[in-house]
């Protein structure tokens, strides 16, 4: 009875999560009629209350098994239009990196469509920094940074007292000083899944059930949640 109750409990949880994803897709479909005519101008006017509070680096973490390119380029284009200067895309296995060309093509196509007939949008230029990150850039980057630092110290003869967080940080190649302020995870899990650990010390981690049929309203709502967070840093 105990095992079957526990299995039933997990079945309920699993079903709840599946229903959550399905409900989100259904809501996005309903909203599609409303937002299908959205372009960059409308997005900017909806996001006006968030001006000045948006992050400069947004990291999208894809934890789903399916990675529909035509859906995942949308939040990238929305970020570009809102003036986000750096966007990183993380998936554990590095499948997005292997699909880079396809993503670039889809990005250009959707960007052209979304910014068509746009009158007042100086921020919308398709030239952001987009980084593709996978588990190979995670802890391994820290190891390589440590080795590079040790080699330099052997050559220069400096002591270990010179090793500080700042000096160690300068050897990191993944993000350098440009760490993500906001991480949006797509999927049913909530985990770093091997994401570069050095770079997430103050990153706000928000989740969406799926990137499938993602709507700009949902995205604005997520950014709104980010802007409302009080960033205290230990105080």
């Amino acid at each position: 009875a105990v095992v079957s109750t526990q299995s039933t409990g997990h079945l309920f949880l699993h079903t709840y999560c599946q229903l959550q994803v399905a409900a989100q897709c259904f809501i996005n479909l309903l909203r599609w009629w409303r937002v299908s005519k959205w372009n960059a101008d409308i997005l900017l006017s909806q996001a006006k209350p968030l001006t000045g509070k948006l992050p400069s680096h947004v990291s999208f973490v894809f934890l789903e098994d399916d990675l529909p390119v035509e859906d995942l380029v949308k939040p990238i284009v929305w970020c570009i239009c809102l003036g986000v200067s750096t966007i990183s895309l993380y998936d554990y296995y590095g499948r997005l990196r292997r699909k880079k060309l396809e993503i670039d093509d889809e990005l250009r196509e959707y960007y052209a469509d979304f910014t068509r007939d746009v009158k007042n949008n100086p921020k919308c230029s398709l030239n952001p920094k987009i980084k593709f990150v996978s588990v190979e850039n995670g802890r391994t980057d820290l190891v390589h940074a440590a080795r590079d630092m040790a080699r330099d110290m052997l050559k220069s003869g400096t002591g270990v007292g010179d090793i500080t967080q700042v000096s160690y940080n300068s050897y990191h190649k993944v993000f350098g000083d440009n760490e993500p302020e906001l991480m949006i995870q797509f999927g049913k899990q909530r985990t770093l899944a091997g994401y570069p650990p050095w770079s997430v010390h103050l990153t706000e981690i928000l989740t969406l059930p799926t990137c499938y049929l993602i709507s700009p309203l949902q995205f604005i709502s997520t950014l709104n949640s980010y802007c409302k967070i009080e960033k205290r840093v230990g105080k």
Partner: protein
Amino acid sequence: KIHEKLGEAVVSTQSTGEIMSEDWFKRVEYTWFQSFMIKCVRTGRLPKHIAFIMDGNRRFAKVKEITRSESYAMGFEKIGEILDHCEMFDIKVVSVYAFSIENFKRSEEERNELFTLMSEKMNYLLTKMDKLNEKGIRIKVSGNISLFPAHITKTLAQLELQTMSNSEFCLNLCLAYTSRDEMTNSVRCLTKGVLEGKLKVDDINETMLDRCLYTEDLPPVDMLVRTSGEVRLSDYMMWQANFAALQFVRVLWPDFGFWHFVGALLDYQRQEPKLREYRSNYKPFLDKMSQAELKMSAHLEHCSLTSHEACTMNSEITAAYTRAHCLRSEKFISGLKSERHAYLESCAELSSAGA
């Protein structure tokens, strides 16, 4: 005050901030339904190591209109409660983010409140050494404890030394801790080893970095729980929790109860298959990379020692290099452990007037 919720155990809380007596070690009486739920949840996979960010104490004080000291004291009692729950679920290692290096930026008044509470509670645990040993609880302290006043550093070192041989359960107190400081410290140790000739540069790898962290001999974090609804890690265990399930719970730490804990465990069990997939895929990736790096390093070393014509690789050369690498690494780690033990002993002997 007695706090009662639907189906929840009766947990007595205090509003005066006084230490509860020996009951810090066994405080919760479970209802029949809770016991039944515990049995249900135990049939599934459970985390071996849970890390807590105990956030929300000051907000709790505002909401309940009590002093900050009282709220922090209740937060300490909550740790005892969590240890009870973990005992029921057979979870062996718990880490708590008790004091961040960033917290030194708080006002002097608040810092002094926290130091006073810390001193009080740690001294209380010292007086309960028989209970700690009876239950097999090991207290480990992770962080740069030299940043604390000397009397606190001394007490923490004594606690850690006197419970070192206990192995039933480990309570890892993260004090004067941030993850970046920990990783930097680990790199510092390894670089020192290289500069002293104990290690080669290529001996620095993920395993060595991991073994030089404060949490050297603890298992990786399987679940990280942050209370109060904040959704960031705040520089806590970013390396150790790299593949952990993250639970951001919208309840203040002193209010975190049994059902919140069970909810987090159930959600962990829901995510666990995917997390296990990530971990199980990571190990072969790491091993493959490590073998390739060792082969390359062996080749480079061999070529630097022989003439160009004799610079050919074979598996024997790689195996010999790998053996030497393992020997150097083990010797270094053993030396580091001795150094850290000696440091704790020197801290434990500090006079309270300051060292």
